[in-house]
């Protein structure tokens, strides 16, 4: 694992790397070839197409579009959109022409033009970046305003420009090359440099690729967004200068449709509208292709309208080609269509095949793997109508996976689902609903703007025979009856958006009843509810049971499991440990023991280290939701693990310390100093680094390379004059890749292509790069294979020995028990126990379930 300094890179390798840098993407080669082919095609049709004069012409036509498109690339990379550049060209051109008429000196007038353009960009930037207005609408407003201002200032007609410099810029030549092309080339080079060599360029990609991650990686998201619009405005100013030179006057209607040509060029060049993916090279190629096509078409004297059609079609083709899902679908279309028809027929058969007697839902040998890790294996159990069965197990035991299968959201890999003894295939949510299964997830499927009645009947509205007219009164009546039956205290006309979480859950239950479900699965329904709401839900569940509905209830709360359910099914590590536990005959400790007892076949490394000063002191932390009163101490050189059930507030503690969430009460002291109003930037300055729970949510920017991801947070403190220190970055990256054993050891790979375990290593590496004194790790080995786990823990040990204070959240007890120097148990947002190394699983879980009075 020795980190040898890099050997000097041979010329050939350097050349290859540069070529790879510039091309960025094999698809661009295809685009380049297309341009050549199209050009050749036109030349064959009209031989004089292939002439220096014509190429020059194409270049000049394309120049202004290319200049705007370069800046537009930055905007779109940042997940934005700008439709105002064309009008900005007109406006700034008019301003420049008027200034020149007034006798202002040429350089001053030119500066004014570009600055005016930037000014329009500032307006856009404020509206979009600071106020959060939709980019389309904001730039629509500036488009109209700029156009109007141009018309007003110019008095509705062209303003003549009689200036040698400007004429030269627009029409002149440097040798054989038109000046406009030179200017465009300069802008392209500057844009490329900005995007690929500066910190700012990285930021733009990060903001577009994953704004949440960008924020967590200390990037000033709003400023970056605003800056992209300012640059576009300035680029429009430059374009205006060239246009002035070419036309010899400022036309208030100039630049009409320019932005759309620019957007076309960007889209064709491969930059995705969803942000984070693309580059300048592609944009330039796209602009050239559009230029060649429009020039060629006019050469062939093709009517103007055909050019419109071709351009429109080009945009569509470009978008569609970059959609792998559509390409695949198009290829497999006939097959998938047939399969879909078959599935629909089978689903209806199920619904009609309901037999007599007690209805049952059974899982039989069900198994499922996710990316190599087993989620559930050989799971079999049955639930009957009229009973409440509790599905129990630790976090990650496989419960949610089973629920998703019942909901028709995920098919099992092995085994089968059986309803009333008939095997069924639930490949879409509708199939489950048809079969009489209703699942109440933790994320709701309710439309906030609609009323309770409308939501209850959404998708299954009652209509007046023959027409589309709603039978509102009938639906309202039925909803009211259902609500009454379940004794839910809600008005059928209440807007769901104004209802609290608990009330929304009840609406979901009402929806299930409307669908005449006879089997309802509830996935941790009370985790976000207040005490009062929980009581109401218990009553509801009992009513469902009394109505003869079968309920599968997933919960951690012992009291409610014992109160509601008659039977329990216990899962451990994806397998059924016991499928017929009669709760009345099983005391709690025995139930807990079933969930946790296991062979420890993994040894996690533990290194003894002497704990140093108190690095982090948290007292009474609350965040207004899940966190109520957490106390945690972490010393330098020790690992403290937060354990507890889902929803006990562990992640929230970390988020507060990382500056990603605001605490509503309590205190945090870092290295002895109290801190408040933490932001990610402040936290980082204090030496804190954070690895989030969900790497896809705030950890990784998927479209960026491994290298860019690793250096993202580090960049903020290491860039000089805004430039990316490339060799320092390369050293850092290769060290981290080696240290963490990232596989494949290729930093130029896109992060999206790595396996989960390696992606996790990248996120951890990003945190390590800033050499933190306090490391916050939220489930660092979740979804990671055994080998990677060991490697990650090795790193954690090493850091600990170097004196870092480590606060970790883990749902895997063996890991927690082995790695921790101390364990802090949270229960419902409060610290209930602090135990030293050596505590037992049973002890910890008992505290986690809130079953023991904690005398710390």
């Amino acid at each position: 694992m020795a980190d040898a300094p890099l050997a000097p890179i041979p010329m050939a390798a350097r050349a290859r790397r540069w070529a790879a840098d510039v091309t960025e993407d094999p698809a661009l080669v295809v685009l380049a070839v297309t341009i050549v082919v199209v050009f050749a095609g036109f030349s064959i049709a009209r031989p004089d197409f292939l002439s220096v004069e014509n190429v020059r012409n194409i270049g000049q036509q394309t120049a202004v579009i290319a200049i705007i498109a370069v800046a537009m690339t930055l905007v779109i990379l940042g997940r934005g959109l700008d439709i105002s550049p064309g009008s900005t060209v007109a406006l700034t051109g008019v301003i420049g022409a008027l200034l020149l008429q007034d006798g202002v000196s040429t350089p001053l007038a030119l500066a004014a033009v570009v600055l005016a353009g930037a000014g329009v960009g500032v307006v856009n930037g404020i509206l979009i970046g600071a106020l959060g207005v939709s980019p389309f609408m904001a730039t629509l407003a500036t488009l109209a305003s700029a156009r109007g201002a141009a018309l007003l200032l110019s008095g509705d007609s062209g303003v003549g420009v009689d200036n040698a410099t400007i004429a030269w810029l627009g029409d002149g030549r440097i040798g054989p090359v038109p000046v406009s092309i030179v200017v465009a080339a300069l802008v392209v080079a500057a844009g490329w440099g900005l995007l690929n060599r500066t910190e700012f360029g990285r930021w733009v990609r990060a903001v577009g690729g994953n704004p949440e991650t960008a924020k967590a990686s200390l990037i000033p998201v709003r400023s970056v967004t605003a800056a992209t619009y300012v640059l576009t405005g300035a680029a429009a100013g430059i374009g205006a200068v060239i246009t002035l030179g070419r036309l010899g006057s400022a036309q208030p209607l100039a630049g009409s449709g320019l932005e759309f040509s620019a957007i076309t060029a960007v889209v064709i060049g491969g930059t995705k509208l969803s942000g984070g993916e693309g580059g300048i090279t592609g944009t330039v190629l796209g602009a050239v292709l559009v230029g060649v096509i429009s020039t060629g078409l006019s050469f062939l004297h093709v009517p103007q309208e055909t050019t419109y059609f071709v351009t429109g079609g080009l945009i569509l083709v470009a978008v569609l080609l970059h959609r792998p899902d559509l390409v695949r679908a198009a290829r497999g279309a006939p097959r998938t269509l047939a399969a879909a028809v078959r599935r629909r027929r089978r689903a209806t058969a199920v619904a009609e095949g309901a037999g007599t007697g007690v209805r049952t839902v059974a899982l039989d040998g069900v198994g499922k793997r996710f990316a190599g890790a087993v989620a559930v294996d050989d799971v079999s159990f049955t639930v009957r109508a009229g009973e409440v069965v509790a599905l129990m197990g630790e976090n990650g035991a496989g419960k949610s996976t089973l629920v998703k299968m019942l909901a028709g959201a995920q098919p099992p890999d092995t085994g089968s689902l059986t309803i009333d003894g008939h095997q069924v295939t639930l490949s879409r949510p509708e199939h489950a609903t048809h079969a009489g299964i209703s699942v109440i997830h933790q994320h709701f499927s309710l439309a906030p703007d609609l009323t309770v009645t409308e939501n209850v009947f959404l998708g299954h509205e009652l209509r007046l025979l023959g027409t589309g007219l709603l039978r509102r009164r009938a639906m309202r009546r039925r909803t009211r009856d259902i609500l009454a039956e379940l004794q839910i205290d809600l008005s059928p006309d209440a807007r769901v958006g104004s209802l609290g979480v608990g009330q929304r859950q009840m609406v979901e239950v009402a929806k299930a009843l409307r669908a005449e479900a006879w089997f309802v699965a509830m996935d941790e329904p009370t985790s976000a509810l207040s005490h009062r709401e929980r009581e109401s839900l218990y009553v509801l569940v009992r009513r469902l049971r009394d109505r003869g509905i079968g309920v599968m209830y997933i919960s951690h709360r012992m009291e409610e499991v014992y109160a509601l359910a008659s039977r329990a099914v216990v899962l451990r590590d994806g397998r059924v440990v016991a499928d017929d536990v009669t709760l009345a005959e099983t005391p709690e400790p025995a139930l807990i023991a079933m969930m946790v007892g296991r062979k420890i076949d993994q040894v996690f490394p533990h290194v003894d280290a002497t704990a140093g000063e108190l690095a982090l002191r948290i007292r009474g932390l609350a965040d207004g939701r899940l966190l109520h009163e957490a106390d945690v101490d972490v010393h330098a050189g020790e690992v403290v693990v937060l354990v507890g059930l889902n929803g006990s507030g562990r992640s929230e503690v970390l988020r507060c310390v990382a500056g990603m969430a605001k605490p509503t009460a309590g205190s945090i002291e870092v290295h002895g100093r109290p801190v408040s109003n933490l932001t990610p930037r402040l936290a980082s300055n204090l030496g804190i680094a954070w690895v989030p729970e969900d790497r896809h949510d705030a950890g990784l920017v998927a479209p960026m390379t491994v290298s860019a991801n690793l250096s993202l947070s580090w960049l903020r403190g290491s860039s000089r004059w805004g430039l990316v220190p490339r060799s320092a970055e390369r050293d850092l990256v290769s060290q981290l890749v080696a240290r963490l054993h990232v596989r494949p050891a290729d930093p130029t790979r896109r992060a999206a292509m790595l396996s989960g375990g390696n992606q996790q290593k990248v996120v951890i590496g990003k945190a390590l790069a800033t050499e933190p004194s306090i490391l916050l790790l939220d489930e660092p080995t979740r979804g990671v294979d055994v080998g990677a786990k060991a490697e990650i823990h090795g790193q954690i040990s090493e850091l600990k020995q170097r004196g870092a204070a480590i606060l970790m959240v883990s749902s895997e007890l063996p890991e927690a028990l082995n790695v921790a120097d101390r364990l802090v148990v949270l229960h419902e947002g409060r610290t209930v126990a602090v135990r030293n190394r050596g505590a037992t699983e049973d002890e910890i879980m008992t505290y986690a379930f809130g079953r023991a009075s904690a005398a710390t």
Partner: protein
Amino acid sequence: MSGHDTRLSAQRLILASAPLVLLLVFLAVIAVVEPRVVEPSNLKEVVIQASPIAILALGAMVVLITGGIDLSAGFGVAMIAVAMVGSMGIEGDLLHGLLIALLFGLGLGLVNGLLVGVLRIPAFIATLATFTAVQGVTLTRAKSGTLIVSDPTLLRIGTGTVAGIPFPIVIAAGVALVMIVLMRLTRFGVRTYAIGSGEPDAARLSGVPVARHLVLVYVLAGLLTTVTAVLLAGRSGVVAPNIGGVSLLLDAIAATVIGGTSIFGGRGTVWGTLVGAIIIALITNALRVSGADASSLDLWRGGIIGLALLVDAALQFLRRRLEDREISLGTAGAADDDRVAAAA
């Protein structure tokens, strides 16, 4: 509890009637600054001018509610008008013309719907492509430049009256009525609001055929574009390829945003859009009467949209605050006179 109830519902009422309040404010200000505008004969002219804007805006509203955008609507008007009048020729067969108009309008809507709903191309790009194509189609049909409307019925539609009320207003009112029924009383309406509503999966998970529905939405927009085109053709008497265009699109979108349709999707009422259209027409008219440059209208339009956006953002913020307060008070959920007698 009931005290809170009434205060919250009063706040809701104020938010809902914001467009109307804005209209009254504008009328008051204009009455002082330029009294000629508020003369009854001029006001009638304003409402007539608002009619095509309103109809197009209603189409834009439905699309915006689903969270999409239809860029092709403005030029679509030109395409349809040109195609219709062009096909009518000198003999002027109105029925034939209307059929052609419907063909083009519904066709445009269908293409948009398939691109956005089925192929799931972002609405902006899809309608940008159709917007470009529409310009091409318009050119193919308007080779001879400006076309003259010669059919007397069509001209009557544009300039005549029915029981003293100008036809355009009648048509706009009729369209508005149909839209109210559609959005409030049919399942099309409920589902449209559901698709654009906060939770993106709510409609799909509940079994709404989203792709098919979106196609219908854009076809409806295409239908309304057709009605606008017919009205404008009848009213102007001549059809140039630049009839409608970007300015009309801007007016329509501004009207919907002012009228309360959030650009974030989900909300939007027919009444609000109508009021928004009247506000736009009123401002344009006031500017013209007071002698403002015709070319500066775009500047005003831009400013109005900008203002409408700020107001929309502010309203969004207030609505969310209102919602949080309602949730924490738990008032909205209580059924007062519908209270069910609690049985143990």
